[in-house]
């Protein structure tokens, strides 16, 4: 059974009134809706919105969190990074925009922390115009503060954004310098230590493609990972995209980090193995609280909706 930390009812050494009040409101409201549904009455859309709002905001305001354990599909990515020899080259692809960032940014952060803690070298790249700014932001927020000894060009490098979608992947799989003659700062790749001995993507040790749109992780699998001699590819994707990646697992994809749940599992594995990151923010684990409660509320609404549907006798009505 997946262990979970009970809701902190006795936080701060005393009885946590706000949490109890929130749960009473949500629970009481649900009971009222259940009674309403048993009387075959439908629920107004605005009431659904109010409950979702309460279910999402209560865990954020009162820090309701749950413990996670990595499933094999997430552990596959973690163990690959953990067991590669030091100084391995890992490509981190930032193929997402700010809309998708809350879901996939936590996994990118966790993988970057893990890889740098293992002394691997990172190559950042983006096929999305909005990805480059997110990539720069991530690099400037994580590396100087948490890994001050790591140097640009030696331990990590950002190649920035390149237009051309799958065309870019098609080129870099045989020649990186042709598509990226310089890094994002204008330094020729020939002068960057990480690229010594790297001609193509086939010379890197792993690709971690984070995203969910097109071009994105799927294109990295098809155009880079599946190319003859291509590197192993792991993906971190938005939850809605995860089912589309399953056909590629485990032969073409090392592992899949699907949505906030995947990020939370990776963060949990990282914290378990690297207690030094205990002080760092873990947005994946933090956001599992709102997601968990929101799912419970949605499931309750689906059940209530069906109760009202059957009790009201509408299942007997003929559809057009």
């Amino acid at each position, binding site marked *: 059974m997946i262990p979970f930390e009970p809701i902190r009812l006795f936080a701060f050494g005393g009885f946590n009134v706000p949490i109890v009040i929130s749960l009473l409101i949500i629970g009481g409201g649900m009971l009222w809706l259940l009674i309403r549904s048993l009387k075959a009455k439908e629920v107004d859309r605005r009431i659904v919105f109010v409950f979702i709002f309460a279910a999402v905001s209560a865990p954020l305001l009162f820090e309701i969190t749950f413990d996670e354990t990595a499933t094999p599909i997430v552990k596959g990515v973690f163990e690959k990074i953990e067991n590669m020899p030091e100084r391995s080259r890992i490509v981190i692809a930032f193929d997402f925009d700010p809309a998708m960032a809350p879901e996939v940014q936590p996994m990118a952060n966790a993988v970057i922390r893990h890889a740098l803690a293992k002394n691997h070298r990172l190559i950042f790249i983006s096929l999305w115009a909005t990805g480059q700014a997110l990539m720069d932001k991530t690099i400037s927020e994580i590396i100087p503060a948490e890994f001050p000894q790591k140097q640009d060009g030696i331990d990590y490098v950002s190649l920035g954004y390149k237009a051309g979608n799958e065309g870019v992947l098609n080129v870099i799989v045989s020649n990186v310098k042709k598509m990226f003659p310089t890094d994002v700062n204008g330094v020729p790749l020939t002068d960057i230590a990480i690229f010594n001995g790297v001609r193509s993507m086939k010379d890197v040790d792993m690709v971690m493609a984070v995203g969910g749109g097109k071009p994105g992780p799927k294109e990295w699998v098809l155009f880079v990972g599946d190319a003859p001699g291509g590197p192993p590819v792991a993906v971190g994707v938005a939850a809605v995209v995860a089912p589309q990646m399953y056909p590629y697992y485990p032969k073409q994809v090392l592992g899949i980090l699907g949505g906030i749940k995947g990020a939370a599992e990776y963060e949990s594995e990282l914290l378990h193995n690297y207690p030094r990151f205990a002080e760092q923010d873990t947005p994946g684990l933090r956001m599992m609280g709102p997601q968990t409660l929101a799912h419970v509320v949605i499931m309750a609404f689906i059940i209530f909706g069906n109760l009202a549907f059957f009790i009201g006798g509408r*299942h007997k009505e003929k559809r057009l």
Partner: protein
Amino acid sequence: MRRQLPFILVFLSGAFMVFQYFVPHESSEFVYEFLLDWLTIIGGFAMVLGIWSLIRVSYDKIQRKRENWGYSVITLAGLFSMIFFGITNWQDGFGFYILQADGLNNPMFVHFFDYILIPIQATMFSLLAFFIASAAYRAFRARSVIASLLLLAALIVMMRFNPLFGAWIEDVANWLMNVPNLAAQRAIVIGLGLGMVATALKIILGIERGYMGQG
């Protein structure tokens, strides 16, 4: 000749790209990479075309004072200010940076991105949770056997993401994802692949001429 030349070009490039895949020789790779350069250049021009189209549509809306034309003013203001801030920087004296990425460190560019674009896009995405909840309440009804199966599968997969329900539900959900979902997804992928091959062949052989503006 105005009609034949595009067909010949399409046939030659299409046929070359197919055969090149099976010929692992340096010269073949050189031509392949050369052609891919064109793809990147076309990609770059597509962006320019997109910007031009946005400017034209928005300008036309403002000029004719069409409904909600004020939003077009904001669109154009956002577009031009982000372009301006993205290619300039004044931290070490004012300068234009067309070929370097220094403009991306422009404080105004960073602030606009961090405090306007990110919250706006994240808000739009977050609103989905509310609409999905409402839609799930209304649409997920056990009207038939198929609908009931879909409803049950959705509930089980949703429960998988929930740490409150334990490992047993995870096993059931994993089976759903790894067997029926995988089978359906693979069928879709294979179907799509075959469809793409058929369409590509039709284009290469000149049967499909939609790219020339003909049906």
